[in-house]
């Protein structure tokens, strides 16, 4: 980091900065909740709801990378797990699952992969198909979307952080793990439909109401969920625990000598971050109607990190807006053939530039501008503009 980016006391929020911060939250929430009043194209609303899900992933990354200093290059693992858990339930609710010659639902692909003569029932049609039995309850699947990522993240982070593994090694471990799980997932074709993932899903149904992804109600489910996660995340980082977490990021040894069990803080926030990613997976399946091993591609997990970096990893809302912004631009740009090809290159270049010249992303720029405005208003001697390039 250059000296300049610490020249504005970012965390010593003055009253003006705090107000500005809350104003950004308020405006953002009003925009996402009010969007359907302006946009009446349901296809666009559906698209935006997917981007809002990515915004939630941005929050998850900012929490672990920005606040805890843990670079998780395998966040796709938790997103994917969350997505599959809900997708399994919705798969069993789809019309085709009820048309496989059994009175109980059985996914179509299980028949294609069945042993000759196997009974068409979840209990024994394939090896392991019994695992699907509890997913006949939609609520079970949805609960698992959050519970399974929480458990996996807790077990994983407990072993990593108790052993005081840190920095790039955490990134390598998480990266390897997401790849491993992706392989297992594809390999377990008879119960996961392998490469093809889970498609042809039913709709989320609550109290008889079916959430068709191309309905404004479904958009609201996503937008309200994002609002809740954003505010909860904001509360979490504002607590004493959030402050102590940041101290463990800055200097774990000092934090230990102040009496804090550093690993406990890392485990807690890493696990929460995974839970948010799992919840995002759930919502994505509701909006996109599929779950696929591509959620666990390395490229996807790295994209999340890029979104958070561009938006500002030290800011939950920054990372969230970064994710939404990049995806919106990508979608617009991808309509043009040339840009579609070059997009990965462009985004890679943007990432390098952000890391080098604006490590606090868009949120950092906003804070700097505000701080400069504040100084000018106070009539402080005009300081030379911070030059990021130095």
């Amino acid at each position, binding site marked *: 980091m250059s000296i300049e980016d610490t020249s504005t006391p970012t*965390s010593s929020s003055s009253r003006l900065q705090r107000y500005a911060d809350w104003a950004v939250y308020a405006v953002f929430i009003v925009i996402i909740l009010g969007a359907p009043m302006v946009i009446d194209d349901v296809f666009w609303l559906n698209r935006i709801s997917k981007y809002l899900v990515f915004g939630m992933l941005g929050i998850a990354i900012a929490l672990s990378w920005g606040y805890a200093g843990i670079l998780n290059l395998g966040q796709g693992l938790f997103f994917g797990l969350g997505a599959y858990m809900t997708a399994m339930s919705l798969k069993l609710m789809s019309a085709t699952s009820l048309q496989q010659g059994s009175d109980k639902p059985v996914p179509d692909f299980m028949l294609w992969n069945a042993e000759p003569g196997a009974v068409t029932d979840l209990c024994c049609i394939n090896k392991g198909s019994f695992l699907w039995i509890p997913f006949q309850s939609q609520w079970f699947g949805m609960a698992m979307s959050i519970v399974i990522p929480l458990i996996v993240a807790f077990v994983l982070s407990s072993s990593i952080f108790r052993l005081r593994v840190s920095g790039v090694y955490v990134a390598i471990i998480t990266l390897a793990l997401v790849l491993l799980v992706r392989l297992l997932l594809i390999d377990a074709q008879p119960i996961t439909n392998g490469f093809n993932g889970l498609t042809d899903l039913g709709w989320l149904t609550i109290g008889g109401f079916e959430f068709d992804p191309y309905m404004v109600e479904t958009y609201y489910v996503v937008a309200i969920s994002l609002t809740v996660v954003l505010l909860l995340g904001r509360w979490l980082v*504002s607590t004493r625990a959030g402050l102590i977490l940041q101290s463990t990021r800055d200097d774990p040894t000092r934090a230990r000598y102040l*009496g804090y*069990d*550093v690993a406990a803080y890392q485990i807690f926030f890493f696990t929460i971050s995974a839970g948010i990613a799992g919840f995002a997976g759930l919502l994505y399946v509701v909006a996109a109607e599929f779950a696929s091993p591509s959620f666990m591609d390395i490229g996807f997990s790295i994209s999340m990190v890029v979104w958070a970096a561009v938006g500002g990893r030290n800011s939950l809302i920054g990372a969230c807006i970064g994710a939404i912004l990049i995806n919106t631009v990508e979608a617009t740009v991808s309509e043009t053939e040339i840009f579609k090809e070059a997009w990965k290159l462009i985004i890679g270049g943007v990432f390098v530039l952000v890391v080098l010249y604006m490590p606090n992303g868009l949120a950092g720029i906003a804070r700097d501008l505000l701080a400069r405005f504040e100084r000018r208003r106070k009539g402080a001697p005009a300081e030379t503009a911070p030059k990021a390039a130095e």
Partner: protein
Amino acid sequence: MNEALTIDGLTVDFGGFKAVDGFTTVVQKGELRVILGPNGAGKTTLMDLVSGKTASTQGTVHLFGENITNRPEHIIARHGIGRKFQIPSVFRDLTVRQNLEVAASGEPGVFRNLRLHMAAEDRARVEDVIALTRLEPVLGTIAGELSHGQMQWLELGMLITQQAKVILLDEPTAGMTHAETFRTAEIINEMKGSHTILVVEHDMAFVRKIAERITVMHMGKLLAEGPMEKIETDPKVREAYLGSGGIH
């Protein structure tokens, strides 16, 4: 109970090399003890052993009668040992006030800290320490931007806020200007009595300003212990320091 810190036969064996070898001493409550010794005498290693950074191979450390030998760092810290490092160690991306607030928490657990506000007594302690260390003008500054001296005072302030019963200071004046050293001596003298302090220091001028009892270490062992005048005239001490030009 008057014995704050009791170190008994403490030894660490790094594959045959004993950096600290059967070291024994008792520090009384409220005492300010200076540990002197030539380079490589084992002073910093002793602090590592007491504070749990390094595991000892023999001997025990008791804090107010409780055995804290080889416990994890944060447990030892919760028992009441605070440590200041040679290189100032503060939370560089947090403001000065936030640094003190982190130190002030009476509760170590994650779930107990899931609340927005500090307890009133913790808050009061932060204010007291701000007054003592004179950090008021820089409270909103990111700690990484402080001057070297301010950073050291902040770290001292954090130990006081932490309510450490026994404070280990590893060369608190290293790299300081004269004025900063003087101010540091003032802070330490103000802490005297209410805190038990163990200081590792080379700067004799500084040691004279603060010292009561002195322990001299040599080759991992206790060489001499007593008041300043006695130590200065001790022939064993003179001999140990011969290579480095004696005490000056």
